[in-house]
């Protein structure tokens, strides 16, 4: 690296303490979020200069582990050693000073600034000479082998180039360990090639790379070592030579099916919902399926495979691009959530706090947004007693544990908050309820109660759709399963044919070749 990249007074003591050889060891790491154990005694070792793939299902703890290295989270327990020296990574700043760089899936670039300005954003102060900045950027980009004009606006570049800018930005800080979190998820095949070349180049220069990806073919082409996580624990670390695709998938899945799911013998009724050739959000294509009364339909797939977009389009949260929806045999037009509700559809959205609840308001009020008209007299006044009684009744049926329904909903645990979102739809006259990630951040006890609720809803003749990244959840809760990948339905399975390995194969395998269609979505700025 050129001399002028030496920065005054930013490295602090951590930088001086950073050893020359960047072996990173994370030993016995655990992490609790509230009552939920995200990581449990995880060990992870990366030697200098190696490309280390980190694998696991969604929710296995990969991102949490990496955020601990990046200083965005602090471990609840365990030790981190860097070059044999124990370190406390107490903030992103410390992590950066130690030479660790992380590139998240959502790029953190300023679209309206130039490439050069983005690369050196962190160290710009006082007067900036654009010409020197550009020259330095060019030298760095050349060194990394990126043919990018340093004067171009970042927003005008294709995604792969934007990612390259992120990498250059990290390298400008003398990064010695680079973490890439699903870097190819939004890239088209030729761009993936370019990225893999860059990773190899970094490795040759002695930079260690942690590579998180669901695309197994990439991993076999690039990784030296593979670590597999499952349910927040380490399954093991293996040299790439000892591994094949089949074995890898079996390591990622194959958990014990728990007793959380009620044993069911459901009777399928008439068809409630028929979705035909639904296209949405620009990349969901030709999704067709049907849902019957008394049925629980699972939708599995990786994050970003289009599951949530399908749910939102059916409910009317977003306008679909095209396609038809029939409810109970009648063709319906759903453009807004209100029309969705009128058609008899309810949605429990994936982002509980951002989309499901008004956190500052009382539990009771959150439960009755869907039914408020019923408790309103001709003058628009609320009949509070009727509302209270109804809310208490629903709270009992959904086993919400709260001292008082007038407390803010933010005072509840994650599980009870989720039950409140569910409770909204219980008396709203829905015939179809869609649950997107119904147990994300929910403790085990509340989980089984939520599964019981799903069961009760289906038993009462509702059609239920459960979307989840947790394979065991969709397997345990559903009668039939759709697997989505790259915006399409990659396959469907009847309950008798369920196997985790088959589902994972469907979700992963088609991701590689469908990815090409997926390369042009607009990048959302983080």
């Amino acid at each position, binding site marked *: 690296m050129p001399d002028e990249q030496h920065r005054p007074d930013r490295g602090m003591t951590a930088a001086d303490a950073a050893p020359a050889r960047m072996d990173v060891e994370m030993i016995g790491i655990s992490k609790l979020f509230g009552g939920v154990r995200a990581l449990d005694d995880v060990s992870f070792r990366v030697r200098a200069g190696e490309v280390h793939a980190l694998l696991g299902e969604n929710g296995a703890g990969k991102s949490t582990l990496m955020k601990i290295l990046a200083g965005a989270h602090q471990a609840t327990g365990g030790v981190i050693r860097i070059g044999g020296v124990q370190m406390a990574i107490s903030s992103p700043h410390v992590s950066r000073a130690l030479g660790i760089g992380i590139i998240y899936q959502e790029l953190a670039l300023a679209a309206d600034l130039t490439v050069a300005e983005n690369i050196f954003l962190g160290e710009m102060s006082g007067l900036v000479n654009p010409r020197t900045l550009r020259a330095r950027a060019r030298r760095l980009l050349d060194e990394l082998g990126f043919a990018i004009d340093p004067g171009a606006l970042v927003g005008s570049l294709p995604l792969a180039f934007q990612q390259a800018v992120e990498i250059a930005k990290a390298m400008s800080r003398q990064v010695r360990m680079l973490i890439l979190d699903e870097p190819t998820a939004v890239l088209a095949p030729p761009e993936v090639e370019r990225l893999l070349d860059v990773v190899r180049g970094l490795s040759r220069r002695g930079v260690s790379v942690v590579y998180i990806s669901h695309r197994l073919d990439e991993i076999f082409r690039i990784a030296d070592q593979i670590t597999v996580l499952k349910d927040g624990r380490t399954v093991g670390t293996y040299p790439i030579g000892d591994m094949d695709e089949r074995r890898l998938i079996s390591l990622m899945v194959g958990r014990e099916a728990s007793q959380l799911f009620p044993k069911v013998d459901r009777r399928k009724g008439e068809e409630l919902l028929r979705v035909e050739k639904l296209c949405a959000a620009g990349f969901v294509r030709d999704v067709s399926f049907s849902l019957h009364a008394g049925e629980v339909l699972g939708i599995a797939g990786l994050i970003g495979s289009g599951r949530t977009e399908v749910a939102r389009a059916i409910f009317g949260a977003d306008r679909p691009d095209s396609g038809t929806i029939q409810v109970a045999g009648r063709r319906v037009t759903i453009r*807004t959530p209100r029309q969705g509700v009128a058609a008899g559809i309810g949605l429990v959205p994936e982002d509980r706090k951002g989309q499901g609840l008004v956190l500052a308001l009382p539990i009771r009020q959150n439960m009755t947004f869907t039914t408020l008209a019923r408790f309103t007299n001709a003058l628009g006044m609320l009949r509070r007693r009727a509302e209270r009684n109804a809310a208490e009744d629903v709270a009992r049926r959904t086993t919400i544990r709260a001292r008082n329904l007038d407390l*803010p909903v933010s005072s509840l645990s994650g599980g009870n908050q989720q039950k409140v979102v569910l409770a909204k739809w219980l008396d709203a006259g829905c015939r179809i309820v869609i649950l997107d990630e119904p147990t994300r951040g929910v403790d085990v006890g509340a989980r089984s109660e939520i599964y019981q609720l799903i069961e009760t809803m289906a038993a009462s003749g509702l059609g239920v759709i459960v979307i989840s990244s947790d394979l065991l959840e969709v397997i345990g809760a559903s009668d039939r399963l759709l697997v989505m990948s790259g915006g399409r339905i990659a396959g469907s399975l009847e309950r008798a044919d369920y196997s985790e390995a088959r589902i994972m194969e469907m979700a992963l395998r088609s991701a590689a070749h469908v990815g090409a269609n997926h390369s042009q979505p607009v990048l959302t700025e983080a």
Partner: protein
Amino acid sequence: MAVIQTADTVPGAGRRRGLDVRSLAASYSTIAIFVVLVLVASFISTSFLSSRNIENVLRQVAGTGVISMGMLLVILTGGIDLSVGSVAALGSITCASLLTSMSLWSAVPISLLAGAALGTISGYFVAVRRMPSFVVTLACMTIARGIALIVSEGRPIFMGDNGAWLNDGFNRGSILGIPLPVALMLLVFGVTAFVLRLTAYGRLIVAIGSNGEAVRLSGVRVTPRVFSVYVISGVLSALAGIIITARSGVGSPVVGIGMELDVIAAVVIGGASLMGGRGTALNTLIGVLTLGVIGNIMNLLNVPGYHQEVVKGVIILVAVLLQSSVWPRRA
């Protein structure tokens, strides 16, 4: 399982108590600031607590008080209405000029409609076209002022005989010893408090400001409700313009210059969050009275007008600092 649940509920319980204490402190800090101010004022000046002076203060804040309730609704949804002062001028001019050829019973409703029209413009662009309320109402602010100046040709308009009741009957009149303009302000306050506390509309306004997306995804139509608060704000601004006109007997195109800032200050002193979802009618009224008392003390102490501006600004900063330091921080 039991262990997990305990671990999960304990931090929640702590947070809950913390929140209660904070919101309690916040709702009382508005009142506390006001009480301290009144105490200080009565020590400083013996005439402060005289009924004549109190009536004077109340009369002076009647206009701001009426507008502040509309502003509160707008701010509760997470918006802002900068056009209120100009719309008050429009209401003032419309009313006075119509009174030269029309009866009071036609002039006043038409003036209120003029306010509603301006509010409809703001509401349309904010709620339907999703434009930032700051920009939209800034535009409406100059449009309304411009219309007022055009109609009046930049000159004050005397109300004439048709408007005599406004000046004599309304402005000088009283009910239960309360001057009618003040009673009108209290009526507007009472209705706002009622709507916010007891109606579905009020609850949804607060909820929309707190998390509009969650409300929308419950199947509630958000757009017409956001639209409506701007219309209400427009009507109340025009009403305030008429109250001010009644007081002076003259319709003026320069009524309410800078008034939007006083009103926003009052709402904020009352503890409302400019991010929306938090604020009450009572605290807003106290915010209005606080500003009124500050101005009044300085008048009683013969603080020169220019100095008053500086002092007022400092006191607003201090009041809001007290508010914000007791509110929990939200990311």
